[in-house]
């Protein structure tokens, strides 16, 4: 009796198995890469109503973050400035610029400029700016090099893992409290690592790792 199936048929199960594994692997890799906040959230750069340039105002004019985000070191919320903050300068500097028309209008009518919110944690997460910046955690760890951005984008993933990576080892991220607003700071002192560990120990810097710390 002749064979019903040709000889290659013996290889079919192996092919199918091999092909399926490859496909499943690719799908898992794809999901991991594309369906986590490191992809969906990081890089979000909305068009803002006024083309405000951080690198110009921070690097060239030399403004401190707190001139505009005034309450970042005093409250849980980092305030986005109202238009009269801009008018402190722009009532005179570039007073007729078209780019600032909306700011002037908002200043006169009292209606707020609708800045698009970029960083937004879920509402079941408790976050507090003041406790972080007053303990030597710089803006740069969470927001990236804002002082070099012409337009702000979402630099980090802001997953739960991202928060915990630092909460488990704060000494790797902490810096002197007066250097928090200097986003270019790099430790020059070779002994800084030990000092940071001492700082974390002496000042009892204890970031919560328990669920109720952030989900209250």
């Amino acid at each position, binding site marked *: 009796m002749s064979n019903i199936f040709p000889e290659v048929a013996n290889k079919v199960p192996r092919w199918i198995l091999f092909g399926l594994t490859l496909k499943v692997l690719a799908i898992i890799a794809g999901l991991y890469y594309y369906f986590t906040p490191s992809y969906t959230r990081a890089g979000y750069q909305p068009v803002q109503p006024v083309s405000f340039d951080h690198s110009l105002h921070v690097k060239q004019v030399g403004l401190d973050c707190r*001139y505009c985000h005034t309450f970042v070191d005093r409250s849980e919320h980092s305030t986005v400035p109202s238009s009269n903050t801009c008018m402190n300068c722009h009532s005179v500097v570039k007073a007729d610029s078209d780019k600032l028309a909306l700011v002037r209008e908002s200043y006169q009518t009292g209606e*707020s400029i609708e800045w698009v919110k970029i960083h937004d944690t879920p509402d079941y997460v408790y976050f507090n700016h003041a406790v972080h910046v007053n303990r030597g955690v710089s803006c740069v760890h969470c927001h990236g090099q804002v002082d070099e951005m012409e337009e702000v984008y979402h630099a980090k993933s802001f997953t739960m893992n991202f928060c915990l990576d630092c909460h488990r080892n704060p000494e790797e991220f902490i810096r002197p409290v007066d250097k928090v607003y200097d986003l270019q700071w790099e430790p020059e002192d070779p002994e800084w690592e030990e000092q940071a560990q001492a700082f974390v120990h002496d000042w009892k810097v204890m970031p919560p790792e328990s669920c109720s710390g952030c989900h209250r």
Partner: protein
Amino acid sequence: MNRIITVVYIFLIILVVSVLGFRGSKSRKEPLYLFPDMDRQARYEPQGENPFFEDKMDDRLPPQNTIARGNALDRAGVFSSGFDATELTDVAFNTGRDEAGEFLKELPIEVNHELMELGRERYDIFCAVCHDETGDGNGAVKNFAPPTLSSANLLTQLYIDQSEGEIYNTISYGKNTMMGYADKLSPKERWAVVLYVRALQRAANATADDIPEAKRGELGL
């Protein structure tokens, strides 16, 4: 057959990567929420948007003819029975004027090193861009501004003679082209800045006699 499948496989991967790009690439689109869960809840957020009110803001102004009992930055204090309201009701402390409406000629709070350091920090944030760290009025903004925004040189005799209360008043409400900083600095912080301005003025006109005997050696005097 094998080869075709491999080619299609690789082609698909390249297709996906070229359409979706890499992690961290900039995008104008709002982040995708696959499972919104309870990420966005019906609650008032600081500086949030609220269609209920005419001005569309969550943040409300205090009702007219009321005085706030402290503020959100001191929540524990505001709600405790031992809340100390003296700073709130102290007219001289809040306005920089005495009962007769004259500007105060001295600081209405205790002067110490802590207050001086607070003043230094706040001055460097809010004033130095225009008045410069030294107080001579040549801050960074000068390079960009038309001559009409010539920030005052705080080290001149005019401002050395000016009373504390008047400087406080300028910080609170501004003067001519300078706008007020009442929304950014609490009364205590404003007095701290006044104190620091006084220190800058003294430093600019200092002589060797102003330095304590013991410290003169460090400066080679």
